């Protein structure tokens, strides 16, 4: 086999300066690597764990139990107006699902570059692949936890409607939100390991800043509070989840604000990441 000069791709090496184009086509060419890295993360996560993938179910269920006991029974928090108090477990679980997806994806994406530093310094491939696949690895957990939600809905007799299909774009939004923030943090973490220390706190604080244990009703409807609150994209995602399940309180305005915030964070995150990318191999 010989190579003809006109068949081969030509690469130009030169110092990169200023802002770099995103080059998403390059990312597409390496889509199989995204698949394999995601698959590796999933596969490795539950190796040598007796319960294996069972943890993906156990974690949100335990959270739900704790929330129900502490926030509903002891603290007396109520679900959205119109949802019976007895449904608090479903109410909180519907929020825990996207929240845990978001938290897991954000946490893994943030440390992904540093964790894969041996790849960064040895082999070329589009760097964006690393946080992408780290974020996507949470989808499998989400899927199993979602089956639990189906069980809860049957048990508490929550009706299944076509509105449930809205969950698909909402899951995507939660994932993109995690990726958007994750891109910023991953790139920063290469240079400042402080990020790694900050992330566990950040994702915990983020949960309290989202309507997971409590209802959006507790935020004053008058004044700018709801708009400010909606700057947290998870507020829109969670409100959307509850609307798809219970059919009450459509999240229209909140959701638009959430989408807007995610787009801004994602696009800026992508460019920031590409800008920092050329120094990863030297800094990590």
């Amino acid at each position, binding site marked *: 086999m010989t190579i003809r000069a006109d068949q081969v791709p030509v690469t130009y090496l030169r110092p990169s300066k200023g802002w770099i184009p995103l080059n998403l086509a390059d990312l597409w060419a390496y889509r199989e690597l995204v698949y394999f*890295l995601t698959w590796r993360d999933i596969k490795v996560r539950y190796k040598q764990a007796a319960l294996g993938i069972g943890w993906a179910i156990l974690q949100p269920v335990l959270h739900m139990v704790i929330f129900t006991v502490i926030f509903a029974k002891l603290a007396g928090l109520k679900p959205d107006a119109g949802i019976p108090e007895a449904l608090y477990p479903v109410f909180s679980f519907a929020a825990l699902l996207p929240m845990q997806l978001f938290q897991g994806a954000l946490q893994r994406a943030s440390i992904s570059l540093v964790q894969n530093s041996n790849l960064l*310094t040895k082999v070329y491939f589009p760097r964006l692949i690393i946080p992408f696949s780290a974020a996507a690895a949470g989808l499998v957990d989400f899927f199993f936890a979602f089956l639990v939600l189906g069980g809860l809905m049957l048990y508490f007799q929550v009706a299944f409607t076509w509105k449930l299909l809205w969950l698909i774009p909402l899951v995507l939004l939660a994932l993109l939100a995690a990726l958007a923030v994750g891109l910023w943090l991953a790139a920063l973490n290469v240079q400042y390991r402080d990020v790694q220390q900050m992330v566990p706190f950040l994702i915990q604080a983020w949960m309290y800043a989202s309507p997971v244990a409590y209802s959006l009703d507790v935020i004053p409807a008058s004044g700018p509070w709801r708009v400010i609150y909606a700057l947290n994209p998870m507020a829109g995602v969670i409100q959307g989840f509850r609307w798809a399940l219970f059919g009450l309180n459509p999240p229209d305005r909140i959701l638009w604000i959430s989408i807007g915030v995610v787009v801004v964070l994602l696009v800026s995150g992508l460019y920031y990441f590409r800008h920092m990318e050329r120094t990863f191999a030297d800094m990590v």
Partner: protein
Amino acid sequence: MSDLAIRVENLGKQYRIGTLNNQRYQTLRDSLSTLFQRNGSTPGGRIWALKDVSFEVAQGTVLGIVGRNGAGKSTLLKILSRVTDPTEGIGEIRGRVGSLLEVGTGFHPELTGRENIFLNGAILGMQRAEIQRKFDEIVDFSEVGQFIDTPVKRYSSGMYLRLAFAVAAHLEPEILVVDEVLAVGDAEFQRKCLGKMSDVAQQGRTVLFVSHNMSAILRLTTETLVIEKGRLKLRAPTPEAVDYYLSQGFSQEGQRTWDADEVPPEAAPFRPLAVRILGPGCRACDSVRSTEPFQVEVEYCLSAPITGLRVGIYLMSTRGEYIFTSFDTDDPARFERYPVRPAGRYVSRCTIPADLLNEGRYTLGINASSYRVRRYFQDEQALNFTVDATGAPGMQWPEPRLGPTRPRLDWKIEVIDS
């Protein structure tokens, strides 16, 4: 133009001191504090790991690259394989570049051999269909057949290496970059790897081969680049380049010295000054006799006291096999006598006994470290010297003796039955 695989012009790469070798992480606090210094000027400054490197490689060439540790070979390969950007200069690469920079990059210990083949193939840029097609061939080549569904963390290092090389060798890129993969593995496997690499070259692919193993360089390449202190020193037919490399800086009468700018700043407070081979009469010499003892001395200075310092030597064959490692405080009593070595100028000297080494050429390396604390300085190829076996045991038979040592053993012959 069209039959060139690689063309680079005035390639240079500058590193900020401190980012090299991950010596330490930059923290937010460091950045904030430099922000308030004059214009964020960085302490320590910058160094050029590579400077003004220009060359062309025709398609189908197997090009050797040699140079000491830290000469800039790895930086050059990283730029060519797009892992890092050059600071200056331009380059043009025709074809996919497959790197074999470090064997097993991207292998995950928890995954099985089979899983790692697919993962590693994808990391190296292969399509899944392509890996599937070559799967059996890869397994055959690696000789790990029956363990293919065992997690690689249970593999021996040899199996691990074979599997990793097998994946990379089946990558079939137009340009294959091989960095020092042959330093490990048994002789049989090395032969197989070299064979695979010449196949690759015969298919019209281009190979860049970096090694400290001069015999592999000689066997495999026709042309070689010599890199010294970040600059392209020589490009010549391989035998000439190897001669130049082996003679360069080495055989200054059995002595190697370090100028201040040759020592990385991370080495401080340790600074090597010289390493010498001392023959009869304590003169530095390039060639010693195996039948006479000789001395090795390392001269260095400390700009500050070092706790637990040990200064030692490595002895290697020129093919890169270790023969021994020894430190000046190996003797526990001596180590207790020097818990802290104060600042000052020192010589650590040892005697290599007679009748130890076989004839041939050897490489001496030095290391200065505090166990489990820090490695201050290491140069595995500080000095080359020759051992002459005149008068050694067994010289009545003019055959080469296998093995790096040639001890004079006390044989007895007993008659049991007559």
